[in-house]
């Protein structure tokens, strides 16, 4: 039991198999709910709720008519799913004894997080989705705009790296001779045990919450239950797998890290066949405008996530671990998304709405579209591998 616990609940899972599992799970999610796994739309609705408290009428804005702003988060599939993701991530972090308040290093870093969060939230909503809807679950929708968004994100990440490594954003290194003092093992063991039990308690509470929604109405209950189950699964996969989309885009430029990028591409490859099957059976794919909004949004998103240190899914599980920096990033995301909603008539009218919604399965036919998608993914894999070679020089020892 204790080795099982160590293996599945404490150690972090390897990123590549975890991302493939996420890809498969996201295809099932699409087939079951008819919508894709996405979070930023819901974050933007939260911003809408906050504005409504202050007497504004966001439900009359065109962007919220597009997104839907009915009820509370508990009445919406997306809302319930996001709640499930938070709970799932928290459960998993507790099981691993990995919850602890992590204080930010400086106010400047915190402001950097807020700014990054706002820019990323703005870019994501401009392109109608973040790393999920416009990327990880957007490419398996065969929507052309997701490809534009993915490549623009990588480009934006390059800009982000340039800014992030500017001297005024660097801290001096805290280096000392010899080893550092680590926490007392006995106190740590007690703390870990406490968190382990707390994690199971929280899971029980989450299930009770599901049952409570189930009583409200059958449809809502089903949606909640599915949402929570998927949310827990996704939350768990994300927290244990430490899936970092920011790292995938950023570290192409910093250290040449490849694992997560490979995992994301392979995860999408796994998702594509599932979503393809669902679409063939009649589920309508989510296709968005292939306009400048996808490119501008992608660049801003890439820049923002690198500046903030995490993307829309990234801040969620980091926030649950107690990394205070990412609470601020989350607030920034909501602000950024809400800004898009506030200026959508101008932004969308110029950058998105006049452009066509391009679907690869219609452009090239079903088989051709699938083939083009897989070719694109294979090409991307090759590009990541080629890029990594720039960094993997053996250390010069002579």
């Amino acid at each position, binding site marked *: 039991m204790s080795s099982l616990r160590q293996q599945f609940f*404490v*150690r*972090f899972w*390897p*990123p590549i198999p975890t991302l493939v599992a996420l890809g498969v799970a996201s295809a099932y999610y699409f087939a079951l709910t008819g919508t894709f796994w996405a979070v930023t739309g819901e974050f933007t609705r939260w911003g809408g709720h906050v504005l409504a408290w202050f007497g504004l009428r966001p439900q009359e804005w065109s962007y919220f008519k597009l997104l839907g702003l009915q009820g509370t988060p508990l009445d919406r599939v997306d809302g319930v799913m996001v709640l499930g993701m938070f709970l799932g991530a928290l459960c998993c972090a507790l099981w*691993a*004894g*990995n*919850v*602890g308040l*992590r*204080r*930010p*290093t400086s106010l400047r*870093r915190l402001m950097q997080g807020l700014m990054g969060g706002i820019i990323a939230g703005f870019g994501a909503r401009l392109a109608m989705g973040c790393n999920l809807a416009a990327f990880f679950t957007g490419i398996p929708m065969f929507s052309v705009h997701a490809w534009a968004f993915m490549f623009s994100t990588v480009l934006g990440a390059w800009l982000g790296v340039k800014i*992030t*490594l500017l001297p005024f954003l*660097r*801290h001096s*290194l*805290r*280096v*000392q*001779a*010899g*080893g*550092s003092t*680590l*926490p007392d093992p006995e106190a*740590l063991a007690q*703390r*870990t045990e406490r968190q382990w039990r707390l994690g199971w308690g929280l899971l029980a509470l989450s299930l009770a919450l599901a049952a409570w929604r189930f009583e409200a109405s059958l449809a809502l209950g089903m949606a909640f239950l599915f949402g929570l189950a998927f949310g827990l699964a996704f939350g768990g996969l994300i927290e244990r797998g*430490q899936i*970092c989309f*920011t*790292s995938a885009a*950023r*570290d192409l430029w*910093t*250290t*040449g*890290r490849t694992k*997560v990028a490979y995992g994301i591409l392979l995860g999408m490859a796994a998702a594509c066949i599932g979503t393809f099957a669902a679409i063939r059976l009649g589920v309508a794919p989510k296709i968005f405008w292939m306009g400048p909004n996808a490119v501008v949004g992608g660049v801003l998103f890439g820049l923002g996530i*690198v500046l903030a*240190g*995490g993307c829309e899914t990234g801040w969620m599980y*980091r926030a649950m*671990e*107690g*990394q205070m*920096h*990412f609470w601020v990033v989350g607030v920034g995301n909501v602000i950024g998304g809400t800004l898009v909603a506030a200026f959508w008539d101008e932004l969308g009218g110029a950058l998105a709405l006049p452009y066509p919604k391009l679907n690869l399965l219609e452009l090239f036919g079903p088989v051709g579209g699938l083939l083009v998608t897989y070719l694109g993914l294979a090409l991307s894999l090759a590009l990541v591998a080629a890029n*990594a070679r720039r*960094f*993997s*020089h*053996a*250390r010069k*020892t*002579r």
Partner: protein
Amino acid sequence: MNTERKPDLSLDLRGEHCPYNAIATLETLRTMQPGQLLEVVTDCSQSFHGIPEDATRHGYHCLAVEQHGPLFRFLIEVPAPDAG
């Protein structure tokens, strides 16, 4: 476990997030002599996979990756000249 060598230098990255953890680790390693051992302590879970991958890719030996609750500890060795 307890017979491990004492590190020559320790880098404290608590409170920092990506990419500063990986960058600072590589920067510190670059200043060190062959055969020396660096200890890195972070509280950012994301470094759990990242720091070992980066250190290895840049030709260093990552000897240990440990979790102490919300803290993560890495031991990275600068390879001796004849090893590479």
